[in-house]
């Protein structure tokens, strides 16, 4: 296969980038930013905490311990010669990695010696080194990372909510797993996962900032060998439309209770750019600080400035989450549900719609400000089969009727879960 390069331009954003299908099978995006000194590179695999049961090329189903994708992320930094951080120390780059529900990403940013840092990135991500000894060493470190999250009320309130919404989907399981589940991880299991998911055809590379296409391809051509394309299947048990339970609560040492109210949505396919634009405008019109809902909840002392909302979506799961600190979470949840019912009946005002559209549009352009934000966004859009400039145009083209039609089929007030963490005495 030859390398194919396409330029993608946006009149509205005043930017352009290059989308490349590399001869190795890797999908590459290069987004040069004129006048920038820094560059940011991120390589990610379509592989996250939810991929715990899978097969390759129609072979046997493999089930692996919860938290293994995150564990693999930690261990990939190591090689026989030492760890990647030591190598980055020679170039001055700032490196990191993260694992989410559906992807694992490795990144660095630098202001000089890009080529050297880029080579380190491709090298350690492409060459796993797992031994019984190195795997054992990580138990204590990740064990403490898990404990740290166990003490995070924001984290707990979200996972309790996911447990209240999803019967079977692994999105309800903590990304890092548990101290018990990670004890099951072995070097062999890590290789099984690596060899399945860390195939260049299943990965994306995004580079933004002070770089050129030629520069990126030169290193890729040298470092990456063609990967044979495999069919990867991840198995999820059937997930009913209905939630598990409408209310979950946990006692926790907090001074202000926290709530998450999650509306379980249909998750047959991932939203395209048009639908993302519609939902973005819809949620902004519904619950942003300009809305009548926000005003009512403030006046009744139900929320404070921590109140927020998001579309939470990935393979096989989709929900809309409202949350924040509240002294009266149940009342806040009831108010949100009542308001949604009213808006479904009466629609939005023109002013609400126009303001929300402008705000969502402004945010989408502002996101193209920093090299880190650009590279991460493009990776996210790639994994969901979307394109960022198409999304910006879709916002500009969205009408009030589109948004109201979208709302009619969402936010079912009889299919939501309220999760609360609060002090035992309250």
């Amino acid at each position, binding site marked *: 296969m030859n390398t194919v390069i396409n330029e993608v331009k946006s009149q509205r954003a005043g930017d352009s980038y290059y989308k490349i299908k590399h001869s190795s099978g890797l999908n590459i995006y290069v987004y040069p*930013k004129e006048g920038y000194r820094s560059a940011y590179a991120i390589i990610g695999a379509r592989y996250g905490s939810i991929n715990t049961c899978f097969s390759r090329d129609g072979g046997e189903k493999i089930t692996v311990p919860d938290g293994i994708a995150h564990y693999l992320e930690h261990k990939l930094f190591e090689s026989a010669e030492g760890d990647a951080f030591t190598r980055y120390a020679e170039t001055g780059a700032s490196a990191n990695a993260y694992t989410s529900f559906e992807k694992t990403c490795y990144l660095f940013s630098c202001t000089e010696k890009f080529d050297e840092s880029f080579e380190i990135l491709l090298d350690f991500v492409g060459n796993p080194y797992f031994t019984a000894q190195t795997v054992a060493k990580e138990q204590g470190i990740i064990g403490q990372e898990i404990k740290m999250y166990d003490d995070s009320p924001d984290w707990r309130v979200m996972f309790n909510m996911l447990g209240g919404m999803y019967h079977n989907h692994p999105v309800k399981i903590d990304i890092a797993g548990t101290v018990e589940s990670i004890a099951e991880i072995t070097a062999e299991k890590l290789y099984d996962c690596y060899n399945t998911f860390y195939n260049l055809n299943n990965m994306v590379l995004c580079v933004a900032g002070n770089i050129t296409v030629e520069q990126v391809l030169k290193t890729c051509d040298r470092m990456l060998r063609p990967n044979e394309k495999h069919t990867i299947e991840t198995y999820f048990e059937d997930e009913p439309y209905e939630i598990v339970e409408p209310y979950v609560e946990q006692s926790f040492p907090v001074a202000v209770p926290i709530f998450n109210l999650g509306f379980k949505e249909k998750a047959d396919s991932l939203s395209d750019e048009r639908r993302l634009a519609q939902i973005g405008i819809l949620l902004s019109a519904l619950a942003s600080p300009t809305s009548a809902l926000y005003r009512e909840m403030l006046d009744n002392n139900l929320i*404070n400035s921590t109140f927020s909302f998001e579309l939470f979506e990935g393979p096989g799961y989709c929900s809309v989450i409202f949350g924040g600190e509240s002294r009266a979470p149940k009342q806040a949840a009831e108010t949100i549900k009542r308001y949604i019912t009213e808006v479904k009946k009466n629609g939005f005002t023109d002013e609400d719609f126009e303001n929300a559209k402008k705000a969502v549009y402004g945010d989408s352009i502002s996101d193209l400000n920093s090299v880190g934000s650009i590279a991460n966004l493009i990776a996210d859009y790639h994994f969901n089969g979307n394109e960022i400039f198409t999304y910006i145009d879709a916002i500009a083209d969205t009408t009030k009727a589109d948004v109201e039609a979208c709302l009619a089929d969402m936010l079912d007030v009889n299919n939501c879960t309220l999760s609360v963490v609060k002090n035992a005495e309250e």
Partner: protein
Amino acid sequence: MSQINRKQLADGVFFSSVRDGRFKTMKISANIIVPLSADTAAANALLCDVLSHSCKAYPDFTALSKKLCSLYGADLSAFVRKVGDHQLIALSAMGLDDRYTLNGESVAQELSRLLCSVIFEPNLSDGVFVEENVEQERRQLLDSIDAEYNDKRLYAIAQLIKHMCAKETYGIKRYGSAQQVREVTPQDLTNAWKNLLKTAIFEIVYVGDSAPDKAQAVFSEAFGNIDRAPAAADTQIIRTANSVNTVTEEINVAQAKLVMGFRAGTALPEKEADAAALMCAILGGTANSKLFCNVREKQSLCYYCASRYDKHKGIMLIDSGVQTENIDKLKAGILKEIEDMKNGVITDFEMDATKRAMINSFYSSNDTVGGIEAWYTAQLFDGGFTTIEEMAARIGAVTKEQVIAAANKLTLDTVYVLKNSEG
């Protein structure tokens, strides 16, 4: 790096601007600086929230939010923090650059005017702040004070500072105390506002593509009618700790927290602050630091163990999360790394790698609006601006002997432990 242009508009009022066409957004901030004081901190903090959420033209939160939303989701934010013995109240407006609006509107100019309005033309009724607005902000500020306890890592650090600096001005919280926040009246708030306009130092910082002349003129005119008598504070620096104070608190937590507070023996404007900053980064500021490589990677004791140096106050903090039974082991591990540095166990690799990492982060900051603003705002107390190139040269010139000397100035003052009551 992007050049900054600084002008004095009135006594203690400065307007600094950076023109840069690389970004999609612009930002203008008013940094209002006063001496930190137990008598005024709470009123100032509450005032900051009230000001940022309403003004005469947009008299409540919803009206102002709608205006901001119509300006392409522009943001008007407020925060209060401590810089040494100063209280810094920052009101910032950030929005889309004019080139990217759908209908050619000018967001930058409107936002500059709006920022000026919230500071100089607040929503007053009979000359005092509107009670309803004050009560709404008071409730939310009290929530955010309480919420400090929700995040145990931040809570542990705050507790360390509270105990370590109990007898110093720096021990006052950035918002005073919850009790004081409860007691502030709308009249107190009005007095605090008038007092700020008269006595605070105003540092206005603008970063954006369009010319700042109009924004500057708006501020210049607003200050023209105000009788100014600005006041500044000197930060108290305690150079050495005489003994170690250990504080233990028990809460139902899954992971214990260990925070150690050191007197660094040097602070700005002393030259040695550069060496102290590098010393702190070698110890626990990067993924190649002594703490990361030894207590995390070799001993597998923790997920994070980081050190930070407050160059204004001259203190260094180390914080980590750990199993209760490993607290003593972790503490010993941390002290060993510091002892090593005092004895000169620092490799050339550690020196060079840490310098590179620091210099990389300096240069990276020049590629975002927030980074440029933060670079200069951080220096508002330093008596003049240093460019990235100058700062990089200064860090690059620090010698190993200077780092060893900086380590030898460290004295442990306070150890704070948060652990499970059953642990």
